[in-house]
């Protein structure tokens, strides 16, 4: 597999049946709304070199960077640019995306080494380039920009992310009352879109393979702090665990990169505090929590 030059990618698969993908002469990317109104800057544009990490498990033993020359305009997002490459230059380039409005959490990539949502990052901010696009750090790479999410899905399930009620707190019919004040207690932590940027940012995720990780812990805290939930005791053994919250050393990068302002770093430190309190409570009342 030769590394292809600008505008001449994809020597591999397509060569087999003699068909080359459309070259760099192909259409401009789909237009997007430009910055407009008061915040409008000058209409910009040009071309940029994307250096995209390629890894196909059936072909390569190790990843490499492939260059693509891509036209852009003010409103071209990084996701648009990748889609343009897929449609016009290299159909085998693989990445996840769906909503293109920063809510489904599919399109996390490392952009010049920083975890970002592709649909919410704009090429204009990386011009004149080159822009390096790699799969999220601290994840196994399945193919190109697609990473393995199964470990996260396991963590997600492990933290019991659902309302747990108990005999002493029957669920009222038809529903609970919850004041806006009570909602604030967990509201921020319920905004997570599972985009995994925080996992890519957190060095401890890379160092401790069994760390639950920022988003999963945050979800546990989200339910623990919900006035309708009574499951904190049940979640304690998952959090207060070698691979639970303790690998976190409060680096704080998770919160810096979070595109939704969730602040997982805060959630984890609060979980540590709550866990220490639970520990102390059990120390004083050794039978607390048993038999439930």
């Amino acid at each position: 597999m030769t590394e292809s030059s600008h505008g001449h990618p994809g020597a591999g698969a397509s060569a087999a049946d003699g068909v080359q993908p459309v070259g760099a002469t192909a259409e401009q990317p789909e237009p997007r709304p430009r910055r407009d109104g008061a915040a409008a800057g000058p209409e910009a544009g040009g071309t940029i070199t994307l250096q995209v990490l390629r890894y196909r498990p059936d072909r390569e033993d190790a990843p490499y960077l492939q260059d693509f020359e891509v036209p852009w305009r003010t409103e071209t997002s990084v996701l648009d640019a990748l889609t343009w490459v897929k449609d016009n230059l290299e159909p085998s380039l693989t990445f996840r995306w769906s909503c293109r409005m920063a809510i489904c959490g599919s399109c996390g990539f490392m952009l010049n080494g920083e975890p970002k949502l592709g649909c919410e990052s704009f090429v204009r901010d990386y011009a004149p380039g080159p822009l390096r696009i790699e799969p999220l750090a601290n994840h196994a790479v399945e193919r190109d920009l697609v990473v393995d999410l199964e470990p996260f899905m396991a963590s997600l399930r492990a933290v019991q992310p659902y309302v747990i009620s108990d005999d002493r707190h029957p669920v009222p019919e038809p529903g609970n009352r919850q004041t806006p004040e009570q909602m604030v207690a967990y509201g921020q932590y319920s905004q997570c879109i599972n985009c995994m940027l925080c996992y890519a940012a957190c060095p401890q995720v890379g160092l401790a393979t069994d760390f639950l990780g920022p988003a999963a812990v945050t979800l546990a805290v989200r339910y623990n702090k919900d006035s309708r939930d009574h499951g904190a005791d049940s979640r304690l053994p998952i959090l207060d665990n070698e691979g639970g919250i303790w690998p976190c050393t409060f680096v704080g990068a998770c919160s810096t990169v979070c595109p939704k302002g969730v602040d997982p770093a805060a959630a984890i430190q609060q979980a540590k505090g709550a866990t220490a309190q639970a520990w102390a409570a059990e120390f004083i009342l050794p039978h607390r929590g048993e038999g439930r």
Partner: protein
Amino acid sequence: MRRWQGRTNEPLMWALFGGGGMLAVFTMPVLIIAFGLLVPFGGFGGADGTYERMHALLTHPLVSLLVFLALGLVLWHCCHRTFHALHDLKLHPPEIVRSAIYGIAMLTPAIGYSLSLAA
């Protein structure tokens, strides 16, 4: 105390770490400037002057105990971070190293206090 697979004593370690940190940030900058710079360079008069004032208060066994405990707590905080820093360096130290590091935090004030009592 409930037990479960994977449970650690980390809540205690962390609580002490947090307590020590809290104490450290309010006191250490002041203590370092005061005892590392001002006292030696005569900011509060000669060494005998400071000796007078400090000796009067700090040699009381109870006060002395509290002070050593406080210093121990701060040291705990520092050792806790040192231990985790080893982990950050991808050195995954064996139990013995861990015991040694936290041991420093416990033994230093203990030895200090016994020596003081002996003095």
